């Protein structure tokens, strides 16, 4: 299967050689799974180390005069307070307080702000940032870099063999270092709930680094299918599904991304709505659901209360390989968002029992101190 309109990552040939099933994703031909399949790849990552190609994601440098303070004009984060060597999760907000995208922004070195955004959103994101901040700073896209994620309890030991300095980093540290003989930007983060790293390297080095990591018995390649089930178990929202331009960070249970300093200053896009929601509450909230019987409840399935009234909708859901049962995320009124609340999910017309469950479904295992 090929589609001439799809872009490929620098690792395309390596995926095909490894027996990947390639699918269109965010405008790229991407591996949804390799030979082992989603279930085994998921469990491998939870027990060992999984290697992901996430080169479709948008990497850029925000450069110019005071990029940290400039970035605060489009996000609700405290970037002026972001220390060298640290990374922060944030969100790009529209003027109505809706989420244009979620992202990571870091200071791995003295070269402005290193920003990583979702692949499907990157063209729009970078244009908005460029337009909004024109005259102060500019976005320099790093199209010549690949991005790998190495995730799982053995990721740190594996990477230490190639980049000893990485072992001295903790969760949300980011550093520009030489690794694998290449100029790398390494952050101790990821999208699985496990300890692990994201590794930005020149595209020309990508296949060599990929193969070097896969030569380690503790590492297997993991496709986007397992990436999705891993992030779902970790309670992490997926842009375009769980959050979009209509959803505020308060509704999305991402209010932690609205920093204390900025809440007081009310100086971010959509501050009127978001401040009101923080003070007075919201009409819908993102929650986790465990499906107690029947089929997995997937995106678009309705959520009903015990009396059968529709109260919300599932925004992503599937089968949890680690827990052996279906789990989901969706939006419900705050009164029903309390862990333990019994609800119904409607799958193919049939109501099935479900229960609001605190997220993450599977505990995070971030290394916050050494």
């Amino acid at each position, binding site marked *: 299967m090929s589609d001439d309109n799809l872009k490929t990552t620098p690792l395309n040939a390596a995926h095909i050689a490894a027996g990947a099933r390639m699918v269109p994703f965010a405008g790229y031909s991407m591996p949804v799974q390799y030979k082992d399949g*989603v279930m085994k790849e998921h469990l491998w990552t939870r027990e060992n180390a999984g290697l992901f190609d996430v080169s479709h994601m948008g990497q850029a440098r925000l450069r110019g005069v005071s990029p940290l303070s400039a970035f605060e004009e489009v996000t609700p984060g405290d970037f002026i307070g972001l220390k060298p060597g640290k990374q922060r999760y944030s969100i790009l907000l529209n003027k109505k307080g809706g989420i244009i995208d979620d992202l990571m922004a870091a200071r791995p070195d003295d070269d402005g702000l290193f920003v990583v955004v979702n692949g499907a959103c990157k063209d729009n994101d970078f244009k908005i940032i460029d337009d909004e901040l024109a005259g102060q700073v500019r976005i320099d896209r790093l199209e010549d870099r690949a991005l790998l994620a190495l995730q799982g309890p053995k990721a740190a030991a594996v990477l230490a063999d190639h980049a000893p300095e990485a072992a001295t980093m903790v969760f949300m540290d980011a550093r520009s270092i030489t690794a694998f003989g290449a100029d790398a930007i390494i952050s101790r983060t990821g999208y699985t709930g496990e300890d692990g790293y994201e590794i930005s390297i020149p595209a020309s080095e990508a296949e060599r680094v990929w193969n070097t990591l896969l030569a380690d018995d503790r590492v297997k390649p993991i496709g986007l*299918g397992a990436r999705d*089930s891993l992030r779902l178990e970790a309670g992490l929202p997926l842009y375009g599904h769980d959050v979009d331009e209509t959803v505020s960070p308060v509704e999305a249970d991402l209010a932690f991304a609205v920093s204390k300093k900025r809440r007081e200053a009310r100086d971010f896009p959509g501050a009127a709505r978001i401040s009101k929601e923080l003070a007075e509450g919201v009409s819908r909230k993102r929650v986790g659901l465990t499906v107690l019987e*029947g*089929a997995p409840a997937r995106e678009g399935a309705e959520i009903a209360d015990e009396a059968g009234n529709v109260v919300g909708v599932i925004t992503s859901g599937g089968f949890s390989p680690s827990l052996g049962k279906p789990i989901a995320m969706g939006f419900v009124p705050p009164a029903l968002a309390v862990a333990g609340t019994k609800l119904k999910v409607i799958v193919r017309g049939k109501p099935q029992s479900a229960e609001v469950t605190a997220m993450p479904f599977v505990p995070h295992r971030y290394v916050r101190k050494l």
Partner: protein
Amino acid sequence: MRFTKDHEWVTLEGDVATVGITAYAAEQLGDVVFVEVPEAGKAVKTGDNLAVVESVKAASDIYAPVSGEVIEGNAGLGDAPETVNDQPEKAGWFAKIKIADQAEYEALMDRAAYEDFLQSL
């Protein structure tokens, strides 16, 4: 055993057709985590939704390869959906259908034709 282009298999004993998915289909789906089978008494026409099979990632519809009345869904798949992967062309069957017209069965591909079809994919 006969086959469809949707990768279902059908066997016929008397006027009772047993329906499942082929080993190829099971491999393509990946690990099956849930199967919804039809209840006895459901009338189906060729191409109607007969069952739903779910992997970690997605739900896939299984279509009735022949018309008739469902006389049994495979209840064993409720507790052991992985049977579809382990024994797709045996214990992993989905439903038994009392068929209305045997010619519908005869018109399906035999194994040689199905193997040729797989080669063409």
